[in-house]
């Protein structure tokens, strides 16, 4: 527990944590304020209707978590890689290992701390995003009555847990890559490259069906989204059923942590 507590302290005090959070929160609020401001000014009636649909609750909630999964997932890849990669790049891992600490325990506890910070981050950005969505709905004249509908509110905890799982899985992939390369820059670079490579693969017709099982497609599919929202930043690619995606996401998360643990155990620390 002491190691987890101190790992959390390290994350909370680290500027990267607040930068990532600020980027995501800022982006979500920007998206909703832009939508709210654009409503009523669009020339096409179809586009106007689509904006109003997006701002209407409960769809707006799904859109908030969709943005968290999409942009947040992307940022989580970089964040996971940055946290563990820095231990290697800065050489701080040396002192920990030299104290006789288990490399695998340190790796897993560090990720547990990242997952906890991500959970808090998802919750806070969701609250901020929901607030921005309510404001945008009022600006657009759509109304926000649906935001407090009891049936909708009951679904929110599960929606948030699924969103957190998708984001944590993305972070685990960046984390594992940084651990393999023993570098935060390599981890961030390779993690983001993998993320975008998956998006570009949708252009290859032969891969389109299989793409649904790729890690970032899976992380984006853990929540059910309506057609007009796309799926977690991946547009109209085929996606898994959300429940199936949760299982695949858990699988990728465990696999990434297993790879990171094995890499940590085997690594020769010469930095």
């Amino acid at each position: 527990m002491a190691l987890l507590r101190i790992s959390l302290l390290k994350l909370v005090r680290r500027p990267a944590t607040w930068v990532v959070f600020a980027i995501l929160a800022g982006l979500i609020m920007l998206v909703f304020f832009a939508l709210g401001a654009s409503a009523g000014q669009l020339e096409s009636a179809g586009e106007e209707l689509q904006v109003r649909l997006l701002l209407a609750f409960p769809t707006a909630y799904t859109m908030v978590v969709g943005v968290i999964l999409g942009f947040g997932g992307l940022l989580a890849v970089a964040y996971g890689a940055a946290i563990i990669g820095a231990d290697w790049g800065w050489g701080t891992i040396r002192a920990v290992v030299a104290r006789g600490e288990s490399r695998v325990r340190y790796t897993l506890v560090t990720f547990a701390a990242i997952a906890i910070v991500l959970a808090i981050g998802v919750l806070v950005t969701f609250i901020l995003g929901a607030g921005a969505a309510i404001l945008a709905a009022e600006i657009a004249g759509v109304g926000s009555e649906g935001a407090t509908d009891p049936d909708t509110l009951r679904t929110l905890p599960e929606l948030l847990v699924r969103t957190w799982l998708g984001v944590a899985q993305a972070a685990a992939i960046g984390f594992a890559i940084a651990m393999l390369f023993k570098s935060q820059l390599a981890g961030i670079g390779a993690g983001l490259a993998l993320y975008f490579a998956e998006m570009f693969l949708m252009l290859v017709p032969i891969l389109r069906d299989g793409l649904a099982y790729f890690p970032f497609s899976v992380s984006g599919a853990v929540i059910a989204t309506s057609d007009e929202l796309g799926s977690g930043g991946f547009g109209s690619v085929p996606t898994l059923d959300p429940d199936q995606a949760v299982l695949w996401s858990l699988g990728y998360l465990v696999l990434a942590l297993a790879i990171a643990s094995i890499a940590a155990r085997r690594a020769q620390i010469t930095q």
Partner: protein
Amino acid sequence: MTTAMTPPPTGSFALRTQGLVKRYGSRPALQGLDLAVPRGVVYGFLGPNGAGKTTLMRLLVGLIRPDSGRIEILGQPYDWRKRGVLHRVGALVESPVFYDYLSGRDNLRALAASGATVSSARVDEVLALVGLAERGRDKAGRYSLGMKQRLGIAAALLSDPELLLLDEPANGLDPGGIVAMRETLRHLTRQGKTVFISSHILPEVQQLADVVGIVDGGRLIREGSLGDLLSEGGQVKVRVAEAELQTAMAALGALGAPALPRPAEIPGLSWIDVSIQPARATDVNRALATAGIYASAIESGSDLESIFLSLTTTTPAPSAPPTAGWGERG
């Protein structure tokens, strides 16, 4: 040639290596290193750049794995997969690194949470011990090189270790800090703890170490007590007036020891280096007095630097341009 002290019983070694081999690709870093560090001493581990000092430190704390050979720490066989014995060891390996955005105290708390359990009272205790109590709440990123070094030593002391492994501990410390560190390490050995220092700052090691091991090319080439080492092949230096140099050389020649004159730092005076046991300094003095010469200074004994240079492949280049002595060694 390796000269060892009379071997104490196995359990009395704080650290032992046998046939330790480590290669980086095709480049050998350690080639069968046999080392025996008795308990309760300050052991100076010396060697030129690239001799294998840092490689040994990394192996001892499990940062890297040996290709072959055995390591025994505090009487227990040590395996990089089972490093529990390191809970009783403190280490400062290479230059100390910390999270710049955390305070010095929080950096120590972060380390205290890994490995052996350490109380927060101990964190404050070691901070005070290295003179950082007042600056403990400042961010480590604002620390000077010397303060980071102090913090590194504090980190090594966290778990009140029985064996302390320090890589160049005097790096960046001011003279006051060096004296304080020396006193702290001496205090630890008085408590029966063992201090293993890897260094190439020879005067510092000479002041601190009880036992010295010299490594070169990945092999131990000399190991023994500092006293034994310094008493072998020593010399006596005498300073005489230049006008009396020839007479002095003739008088010293009668002792049967090679003597070599060189200019002294004071005009009109010369040093004569006499290759003779330091214990025979009185014979040198008597020979000069008999010849009617009174030396203005007599220094006896050997220094670690000359022994180190004679044993290792390091080549000093005093007359070469400053960069010439910094080349990579294979």
